[in-house]
C-alpha cells in the first residue's frame, strides 16, 4: 500500500494519505497486535556530493531511515511512502502498485496532487483524445478566442459525460479565474501549431489533413446542412470550455472532419471516459480505428479534391450523434440532440454499419447523407 494508491482509492489529497499511513502505523504499533508492519519512508534533502550540493530524494526502508537522514545535511521532507506486511526486497512492488493505480486513473492523475497547474487544460485536437477539464467560466471568452484561432484544428466535439465530471468541476472551481490565462495560452499554443497544420501542403501532412483529403463534398454538404442549426444550440449548451473551443473552432475548421472521422474521433474520446457503459463503445473504438484507417485509404483513391471549403464546415454535430446513442446518454446531450434525433439514428446506423462492414462505410454514409438531405 503506497500513499499514492491510498490517495486514489480513497479519493483524498496525497498529503492526507501520507498522514493516514503514518497514523495507522503509529496506532498499530501502539496496539502491538503482533502483525509486523514494514514501512518505507521517503526522505529528501540536501547532500554534499562531488563538491556541490545535491538534492537527493530517496525511498528507504525503515531500518535505513535514520542512517539516510544523518547523511543529509538538511532534510527537506520525510514521510511515509508505503506500508506492507512483508519485507520488501526491492522497490519494484512499490513501483508496480503505483503504476497500476496511475494507469487506471490516468486522466485525473493530478486530482489529488498538492500542486494545481492552471495552464494544464486539455486542448481540443482533431484526432487526439481529449481529457475533459471542466471549467465553468470563461466560456464566453473562449468563443471569440477560439474563433480567432487558426484553422487546421478540427476537434471532434464529442461531449464527455457530464455527470462524471461534476466532481472534477467542483475541484476546479478555483481555476475559473485562471482560465482566461489558459485561453490565450491555448490560442497561442494552437496558433503555433496551426501554421504547422495549415501549411499542410508543404509540410508532411498531419493526420488531420489526411482526413481532410478524404472527405468528399457530399459529406461536407451534409455536415453543413445539419450542423449549422445545431451549432448555436451547442454553443449555448456547452459546459466545458474545451468543448466550446471545439465548436467555434470546428466552424473554421478543416471541413475534413467527415462524419466517419468524427465518429472515429468521438470513439477515441469515448475511450477515455471512465464510465463502464462506455466500455462497449471502447471495443467499438478499437474496431472502428482500423476500420477507419482502411476507410481513409479507400477515400484517398476516391476523393482527391476539397481542401478549401472544408474550412467552414462545423464538425460538432456528428460526434454528438455518436455520443447520444451510446449507452448512458448524458441528459444534457440528449436534450440538445433532440432535434438531431434523425442524425442520432443515422449515427447509430452508421456505427452499426461500421461494426459489420468497414469497407463499405463510406458508401453507407453517403447514402445516409443523401437520405437525410433528400
Amino acid at each position, binding site marked *: 500500500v503506497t500513499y499514492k494508491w491510498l490517495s486514489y482509492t480513497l479519493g483524498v489529497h496525497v498529503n492526507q494519505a501520507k498522514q493516514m499511513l503514518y497514523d495507522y502505523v*503509529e496506532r498499530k504499533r501502539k496496539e502491538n497486535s503482533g502483525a509486523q508492519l514494514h514501512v518505507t519512508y521517503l526522505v*529528501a534533502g540536501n547532500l554534499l556530493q562531488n563538491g556541490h550540493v545535491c*538534492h537527493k*530524494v530517496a525511498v528507504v526502508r525503515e531500518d535505513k531511515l535514520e542512517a539516510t537522514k544523518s547523511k543529509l545535511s538538511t532534510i527537506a*521532507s520525510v514521510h511515509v511512502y508505503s506500508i506492507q506486511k512483508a519485507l520488501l526486497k526491492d522497490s519494484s512492488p512499490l513501483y508496480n502498485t503505483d*503504476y497500476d493505480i496511475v494507469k487506471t486513473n490516468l486522466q485525473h492523475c*493530478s486530482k489529488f496532487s498538492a500542486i*494545481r497547474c*492552471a495552464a494544464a487544460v486539455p486542448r481540443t485536437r482533431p484526432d487526439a483524445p481529449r481529457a475533459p477539464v471542466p471549467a465553468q467560466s470563461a466560456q464566453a471568452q473562449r468563443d471569440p478566442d477560439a474563433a480567432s484561432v487558426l484553422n487546421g484544428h478540427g476537434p471532434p466535439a464529442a461531449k464527455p459525460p457530464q455527470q462524471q465530471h461534476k466532481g472534477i468541476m467542483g475541484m476546479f472551481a478555483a481555476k475559473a479565474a485562471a482560465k482566461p*490565462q489558459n485561453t490565450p495560452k491555448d490560442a497561442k499554443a494552437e496558433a503555433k501549431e496551426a501554421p504547422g497544420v495549415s501549411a499542410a501542403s508543404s509540410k508532411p501532412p498531419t493526420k488531420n489533413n489526411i482526413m481532410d483529403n478524404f472527405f468528399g463534398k457530399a459529406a461536407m454538404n451534409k455536415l453543413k446542412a445539419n450542423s449549422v442549426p445545431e451549432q448555436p444550440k451547442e454553443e449555448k449548451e456547452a459546459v466545458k470550455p474545451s468543448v466550446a473551443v471545439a465548436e467555434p473552432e470546428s466552424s473554421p475548421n478543416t471541413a475534413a472532419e467527415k462524419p466517419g472521422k468524427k465518429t472515429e474521433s468521438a470513439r477515441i474520446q469515448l475511450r477515455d471516459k471512465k464510465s463502464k457503459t462506455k466500455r462497449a463503445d471502447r471495443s467499438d473504438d478499437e474496431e472502428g480505428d482500423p476500420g477507419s484507417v482502411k476507410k481513409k485509404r479507400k477515400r484517398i483513391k476516391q476523393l482527391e479534391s476539397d481542401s478549401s471549403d472544408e474550412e467552414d464546415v462545423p464538425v460538432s454535430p456528428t460526434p454528438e450523434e455518436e455520443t447520444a446513442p451510446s449507452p448512458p446518454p448524458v441528459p444534457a446531450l440528449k436534450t440538445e440532440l433532440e432535434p438531431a434525433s434523425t442524425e442520432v439514428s443515422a449515427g447509430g446506423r452508421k456505427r452499426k454499419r461500421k461494426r459489420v462492414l468497414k469497407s463499405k462505410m463510406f458508401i453507407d454514409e453517403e447514402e445516409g447523407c443523401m437520405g437525410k438531405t433528400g
Partner: protein
Amino acid sequence: MFSEQAALTAQGLLAPPSAEPPTFPRVPVSGYSDCSQPFQLGERSFSRQYAHIYAVRLAGMRPGLERRARSQWGNDIVVRKLSELQAGEMCCVVGTLFKAMQLQPSILQEISEEHNLVPQPPLPKYIQPSDELILEDELQRIKLEGAIDVQRLVTGTILAVYGSEQDDGRFLVEDHCFTDLPPPLPWNGPSSDRFVLLASGLGLGSVSGEALLSTQLLVDVVTGQLGAEGEQSCAAHITRVILAGNLLSQNTQSRDTINKAKYLTKKTQAASVEAVKMLDEILLQLCTSVPVDLMPGEFDPTNYTLPQQPLHRCMLPLASAYATLHLVTNPYQANLDGVRFLGTSGQNISDIFKYSSMDDYLEILEWTLLAGHISPTAPDTLGCYPFYKSDPFILTECPHVYFCGNAPRFQSKLLQGKEGQQVLLVTVPDFSATQTACLVNLCNLTCQPITFSSFGADSED
C-alpha cells in the same frame, strides 16, 4: 536551495491526518516564447550538396571573426584570403578547419566490406597523433602547423589564424582565435525563485527497469505528490520541465526486421512502440501539472539529421491533448520568463568528444560557445540537413542557459564573458544511468542536481 525553506515543515507529515491539506497553485509561466524557428525545417529537399553549408557558415562568421582578430592582434593586421597569400608575410586568414584523420570512419571504407576487408569498429575516440589540420576558405586550402593544438580542434570550426606562409606551402601559425562569446542578451529574469527542471536520457523501453521507480519519483516530485508540504510548495515553483532527448533507450533501436527473416518478425512489434506508450503515460502525468518541452534525441523516433524535428504528436495521444506539452526541435531555443535557453540533446557534444582530445563535456560545451557554433562537426561526422541559405547553428546571441543532454555526469559552470555575458553551462546527465536531473534557478542562474534513489535487493544506499 531548492528546498531549504521546506526543512521547517519536514516532519509535518509524520502526524495523524490533519484538516484539508493545502494545495499550491503552480507558478504560472509569465513569459514563454519559442525561439527555435530556425531549427524547424519546412519542406526538406536533400538534393543539394553539403558544400553550401560550409560556404554560408564561413560567410556568416567571417565578419565577426575579422572583428575579433583585429581586436586581438591589432587593428593594422592584414586579413588575406588564401589566394592572396604572399610567402613570409604575417597576416591573418579566416577559414574553415578540416582535420584529416586516419581513423575517421569513411564511407569508402565501408565499401571495403565488399572486398572482405574488416570494417572499422566504432571507437570511443578517433583521434590519432598523425592527424593534420588544414585550413580552407572559399577557394583554396592550406596545411596548418605551429602553435595550434591539432588534437583539440575539430572539422568545421571557423577560426582566424595569424601567421605566415612558409616556403614549403604550409602556414605557420603564431596564434589563432575564435569568435568568442556572441553579444549578450538583456537580462529580464524573474525576481523570485523560479525553477526549470532539465532531464534527459529517460531511457524508456530498456530491458532493465531500475530507473523506472526513479522516473516515477521524478514525476511525483514535479507534480507535487511526493514530499512534505514545504517541498511541495517548492516544487510548485518549477515552472517548466525540459526533457532533453533520449526518451527511449538504445534497446529500442534494434532493427531485427532487417536482419531476420520475415516469417520470424511478422508478428513482432518494434520495441519503440511499447516505450512510446510508456512515455505517453509519464508525459500525461507531467502535463497535467507542469508545462513540458520535449526534445527528441539520438534514439527517439524522429529524423536522424540535425536539426531533429519535433516528435509527432500522434505518437503521444494522451499527453498531446494537453496544451502544456510542447514538442520542440533538437537544438532548442526559447525564452522562459526572460531567460534565454539554448540546448541540444547531446549529439553535437558527443560527436566533438569522439573527434577531439577534449574529454570533459562541460569543456566541450564551453568550447562550442567560444567557437560560436553549436555543432561544427555537423555535416562531416554528424548528420545534418543541407542548409544553403544560412546556417542556423551559428550562435548569434548569447543564451543565458546553455545545456546539453545525455552527458555522462552532471556539471555546471557559470561563464562570464568580456562583454558582460553570463552563461550558465549545464551538462544534463543521462537519467537512466545516473538518476539525476537538474534544477535551474532562473532567478540567480544557479543549478542544482536532484538525485532519486530507491532501495535495491542489496539494500545499500
